[in-house]
């Protein structure tokens, strides 16, 4: 099926090699290891496979989704997958032979440009595995740049991002310190100022934070820079259609999970790690970067550049071991942003604001459930429930609704709190159905 050569062709090839059979070619492998018993299920034809995999997909329940918490479902225009799934993009390799890979290279250059436009930052890489690893690599770069060894993080950073950061720093002689939040679900600025000492390499701010609230990034930035540390800002890319950019508040690195830009949530992967920085730090960035070069005739051409940072040149002295980028997800993102343009992104961001705030009003009207978020928010907020959030999740699942993220998973004191998200995908009807379902509890 996938192996084209016939018995006759195999025989002709063996004759050319001068081997009597394929077994002879495998003489390097000790006989005792060859051809082990394999207990595998029956091989499926394409038709059988399709039926089997459709059946698995059908075991996932199609719920109206009100969960965000790091991955956000947005409308994806049909042109996005139609273009990115072209075999010429999908089945291309990493563009090492630049002359034969101008298509992929130019899309990455345009992706980097769009990420800079979005964040207001100077430079961007070709992308990383996901938001959590991009953030972590930015923090590691900050440690290299400052020569300091403490990474201070917001208590309201995504819990999985905290775990990934700890994984990567555990054996690197770096410490991770948390700056606490206020009761209102935003960062405690006074406590942050006390936490930041001359040991701090950087502070990792997430805005909107894990609870959905927008932080006073300008004030945070001043405090961080006042302590001689760098600011790593974790943002929501769709929010930047209307919300102040990391460039505007002088962040040193801005990173995000780029999935909301034209990529499905797909159970959390693949993600799209967006990494941007001030120009001065470009040689400290990990991973691929595309730049403009000239060909022999002086014509503009695109090429992987600044490779002296990378593992295939520097081996154990490289800035990271990363050896790929999420090129296809980055392609989805750049097609998405090209279709939307500046006006489209603003519109979709405003729709998120409208839907989420309208949902918050409807929830307050139930009288039993209360929106707990006091700070400005984008498309996600915290709801105080009269019962355990886990029960709310279970009850709403019966009505075909994914109610949100149960904050009780993080700490027992939060067991009655639910993190709820509404993007532009949730219609007026969906919002009413959600509020009605809550009212019925």
């Amino acid at each position, binding site marked *: 099926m*996938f192996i084209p050569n016939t018995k006759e062709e195999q025989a002709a090839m063996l004759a050319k090699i001068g081997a009597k059979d394929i077994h002879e070619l495998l003489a390097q492998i000790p006989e005792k290891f060859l051809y082990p018993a*394999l207990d595998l299920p029956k091989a499926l034809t394409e038709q059988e496979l399709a039926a089997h995999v459709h059946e698995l997909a059908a075991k*996932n329940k199609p719920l109206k989704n009100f969960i965000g918490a790091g991955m956000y479902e947005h409308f994806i225009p049909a042109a996005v997958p139609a273009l990115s799934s072209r075999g010429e993009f999908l089945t291309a390799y990493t563009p090492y032979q630049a002359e034969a890979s101008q298509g992929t290279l130019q899309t990455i250059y345009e992706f*980097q440009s769009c990420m800079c436009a979005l964040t207001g930052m100077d430079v961007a890489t070709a992308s990383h595995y996901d938001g959590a690893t991009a953030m972590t690599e930015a923090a590691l770069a900050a440690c290299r740049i400052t020569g300091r060894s403490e990474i201070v993080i917001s208590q309201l950073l995504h819990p999985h991002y905290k775990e990934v950061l700890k994984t990567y720093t555990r054996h690197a002689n770096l410490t991770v310190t948390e700056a606490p939040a206020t009761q209102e679900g935003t960062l405690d600025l006074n406590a942050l100022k006390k936490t930041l000492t001359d040991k701090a390499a950087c502070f990792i701010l997430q805005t909107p934070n894990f609870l959905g609230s927008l932080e006073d990034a300008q004030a945070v930035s001043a405090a961080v820079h006042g302590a001689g540390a760098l600011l790593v800002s974790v943002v929501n890319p769709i929010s930047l259609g209307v919300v102040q950019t990391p460039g505007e508040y002088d962040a040193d690195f801005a990173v995000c999970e780029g999935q909301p830009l034209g990529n499905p949530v797909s159970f959390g992967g693949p993600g799209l790690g967006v990494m941007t920085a001030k120009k001065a730090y470009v040689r400290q960035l990990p991973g691929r970067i595309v730049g403009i070069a000239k060909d022999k005739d002086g014509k503009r051409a695109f090429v992987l550049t600044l490779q002296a940072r990378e593992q295939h040149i520097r081996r154990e002295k490289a800035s990271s071991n990363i050896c790929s980028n999420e090129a296809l997800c980055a392609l989805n993102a750049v097609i998405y942003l090209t279709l939307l343009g500046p006006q489209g992104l603003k519109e979709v961001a405003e729709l998120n604001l409208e839907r989420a705030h309208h949902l918050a009003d409807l929830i307050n009207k139930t009288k039993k459930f209360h929106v707990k978020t006091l700070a400005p928010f984008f498309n996600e907020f915290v709801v105080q429930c009269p019962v355990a959030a886990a029960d709310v999740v279970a009850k709403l699942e019966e009505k075909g609704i994914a109610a949100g993220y149960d904050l009780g998973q993080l700490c027992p004191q939060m067991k009655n709190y639910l993190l709820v998200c509404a993007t532009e995908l949730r219609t007026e009807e969906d919002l009413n159905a959600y509020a009605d379902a809550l009212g019925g509890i």
Partner: protein
Amino acid sequence: MKEILKTNELSIEKSRPGRRGVRFEQTQKHAADYLPANLLRKSTLNLPELSEFDTVRHFTRLSQQNYSLDAQFYPLGSCTMKYNPKAYDTLSVLPGFAHAHPFAPESAVQGTLELAYNLQELLKQITGLAAFTLQPAAGAHGELTGILTARAYHDATGGKDRCEVIVPDTAHGTNPATANMAGYHVINIKSAPNGCVDKAALKAALSEKTAVVMLTVPNTVGLFEPEIKEIADMVHSVGALLYMDGANFNALIGLAKPADFGVDIMHLNLHKTFAAPHGGGGPGSGPVGAAKHVAPFLPHPIVSHVNGQYTLADNRPESQNRMKAFYGNMAVVIRGYCFLRQFDGRTLKEIAENAVLNANYVRACLKGKFNAFFDRNCMHECVLTPPDPHTTGVHTSDIAKRLLDYGFYAPTIYFPLIVPEALMVEPTETENKEMLDAFVTALEQIYEEIQTDPQVVKDAPHNQPVKRIDEVSAARQPNLRW
């Protein structure tokens, strides 16, 4: 002919104020009605303004300026550019999978979890290892996962003082970079003249400080380590673990199980051996497997099957290394699962057998012109060398560019580092004999050109969208964005 249609413009250069590719429902209120002024964006958003049709034309044209596996042969060594079956394109994005949220109740994502569980079980079966995690997003990410797993194992079993990772000089650059990221000191060892591990050098490097030995099997010169079991025993005798870089597993799939020859931890590349597309550089997927004694230290979570339900809530207190925000690149995982389900215990080995046959055929056909650096049967890839560049003046980089003119992507070049002017060719099992013959003919023709008209090779490429690129010019004054 004068160029009338501009073919080389950026999207931003095609931008015209007021053009739109997509419209959204109008809102009643605007951002300023919801957010305080200090939180609003003030700077302009310099994104292109294109119609949907402009956008489609733009990216379709860019796609046409690419080599791709669907159109052409990619003989890239260590990259396993095998055919990516079309059925999986559709199946991996079925709405049931694409809309599954990672924080949805587990009862609502049983299909995704069951598929992941099934793949974990299949990978255990074909490697002989005791457990697999599908979490890592790529091969290098799998390496880091594997080495951190080894570190967690040592930390818990009295090996906290082990601080060294041994890597042969044939290893991919990711191996030493990975060990360094895990906080280990890297000890490089030279290979023996036959391209395999120098056992004396390994013995000299091994000590009670050794945490892990990282080996690529088959190695990057395309050879299997015939004494792999003895090497594993040496590694284990000092209490260290053997890590297998499974980037080249296409040579072994169905033929041998790494657990049988003493591998403790390994990663696989679903975007290589398991036919997931490379997507121009990713996303990939790098599952990591571990033998029974190391399995408890694999990163949390792994899908388990408890009381008829599939769940990510596994109870392994030793596990501490979350590698990314969510479990695995599921869209890629689905493709890997689809691929494995199309083979059974009898046919799986045909993948590796034909990969080995194709590589040896190319090697045999080019003998006398582009000789294999190690003149013996290889596994799934062969490392060739060009006629002596000191006499011809033509280097491997020139030959690589000239191949583009003939319609072939270049092999992996200048790797492994121990082979001067290396051309590393991996045809994979999915190329037919005619394609291999055509590739051989192209290289033979280039061989003739090197003798008769070397300049045409040195000036290549001639028929690509751009001529030879001065890569140094890009690094000198980086232009990385519009």
